[in-house]
């Protein structure tokens, strides 16, 4: 493998990193604007026209703040916690197919960094490891509130991973492959999985809220009970990393949901456009734009729910997970299997 053949992949990795960071940066701004809209306020409007530079100001502020590491904490693990959180958040994006193939200078480049034949499992593995960031950080802070937040995060994510896995099992029965690229290709021509797996999508969506620690499931950082939850002791950019990883997770889970259930980069009348213009590159670029539209809708949905629905109590969260979602997930798997047995042929 020569260096030149690696170049497109390298460019894609850097571009993905930049886009993820940019989307996360402006998600913080969008969150405040959406909150302001839903509460009939104006929101941040001082930095730049319409407050457009607010995220930059926030970022500079994070970097300039004094960095406090508690004396009684475990210093190495205290620093490691936010590192794991943001690393795992950034790692998932590489298996997502961000678009069809681009043809540049005679070479066709797929807009996906790596197409693993176990794509979904990779995402799942990285997500399940991501909880260590919260757990290690919460424990290393040596603070009762942080520890409570860490313990809540771990049990919550473990519980909801099960129903998330069950919803994916039902989806895999339909698709017959774990490769995200193939799943997207199968959905070409409005055969979106949402039509075949509506219950599976609902389960996945609810679990995505729990996995990203978003309201109504943000018990690990529940400020009415736990001060700041697992990041009580964190300050400066280390706190910034924790908050940032939440927004990156939102972006990635939006991308995964769009890919698995909403056709990824497929859009209506795709073939007609390809026939009319004859340009694959144009279709690819529009497809990527559509994928981002879907993702932005999901990000907006996350925010919409956050500012509409109050937080669950912890026992309610556990009851919903174990007594509501897991039986529903098992029912969905069985129903899908039976349906496939009778109707596929």
């Amino acid at each position, binding site marked *: 493998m020569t260096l030149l053949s690696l170049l497109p992949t390298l460019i894609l990795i850097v571009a993905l990193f930049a886009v993820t960071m940019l989307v996360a940066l402006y998600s913080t701004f969008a969150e405040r604007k959406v909150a302001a809209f839903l509460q009939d306020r104006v929101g941040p409007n001082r930095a730049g026209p319409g407050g457009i530079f607010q995220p930059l100001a926030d970022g500079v502020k994070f970097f300039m703040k004094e960095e406090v590491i508690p004396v009684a904490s475990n210093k190495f*693990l205290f620093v490691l916690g936010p590192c794991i959180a943001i690393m795992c958040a950034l790692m998932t994006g590489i298996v997502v197919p961000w678009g069809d193939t681009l043809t540049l200078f005679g070479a066709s480049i797929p807009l996906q960094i790596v197409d*693993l*034949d*176990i794509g979904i*499992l*990779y995402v*799942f*593995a990285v*997500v*399940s*490891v991501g*909880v*260590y960031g919260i*757990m*290690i950080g919460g*424990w290393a802070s040596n603070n009762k509130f942080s*520890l409570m937040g*860490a*313990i809540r995060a*771990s*049990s919550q*994510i*473990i519980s909801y*991973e099960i129903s998330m896995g069950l919803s994916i099992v039902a989806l895999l029965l339909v698709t017959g492959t*774990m490769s995200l690229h193939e799943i997207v290709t199968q959905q070409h021509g409005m055969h979106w999985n949402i039509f075949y797996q509506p219950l599976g999508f609902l389960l996945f969506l609810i679990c995505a809220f729990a996995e990203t620690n978003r309201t109504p499931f943000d018990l690990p950082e529940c400020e009415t009970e736990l001060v700041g939850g697992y990041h009580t002791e964190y300050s400066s950019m280390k706190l910034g990393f924790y908050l940032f990883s939440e927004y990156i997770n939102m972006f990635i889970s939006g991308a995964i949901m769009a890919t698995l259930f909403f056709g990824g980069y497929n859009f209506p009348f795709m073939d007609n456009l390809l026939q009319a213009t004859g340009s694959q590159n144009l279709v690819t670029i529009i497809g990527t734009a559509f994928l981002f539209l879907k993702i932005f809708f999901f990000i907006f949905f996350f925010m919409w729910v956050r500012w509409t629905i109050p937080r669950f109590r912890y026992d309610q969260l556990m009851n919903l997970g174990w007594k509501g979602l897991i039986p529903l997930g098992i029912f969905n798997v069985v129903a899908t299997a039976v349906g496939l047995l009778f109707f596929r042929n």
Partner: protein
Amino acid sequence: MLTSAFYFIAFVTIFFAIMVVVSKNPIHSVLYLVLTFFCISANYIFMLDATFVGMVNVIVYAGAIMVLFLYVLMMMNLNAIAEQKRSVLFKISAAVTGGMLLLVLVAALKDANLQIQGSALEAEQRIGSIKVLGYVLYSKYQLPFEVASILFLVAMIGAVVLGKKDNSTKTIGIEPVK
């Protein structure tokens, strides 16, 4: 190339495994165990080309079981001082038991044949791919697979039974607990 990579991964794996036993703080032990599982997964993925098994290992062991270990340890808030002193006899017996387990595992896997005999479908596939694994698991090893599933079911029901406390005799004030 592959051999040196194997030696490197194996060395790192064993190093972390030793750190699990040696480190004083139980939380550190668990974190080293997580790293050990990652290294074992790396072995699966790079040496055997078994990406599925490697990923499932990360999900199940590193992502779920170890999180629960960590959860319990954090709940109990153990530290180095609280650790009990163990007698020499205890340590010797632990070493002997572990050594015997190692012996059994080596003896069982010594003659293991990694080539799959069978139909042409398997021959053209990579040994570790999901297709081959699923095919072999649901044809040749179907009975052991199902027996193992029943074993898991029994363990699950057993855990629920043990976890359910008998509250019939307890009271809060004068009200019996429901």
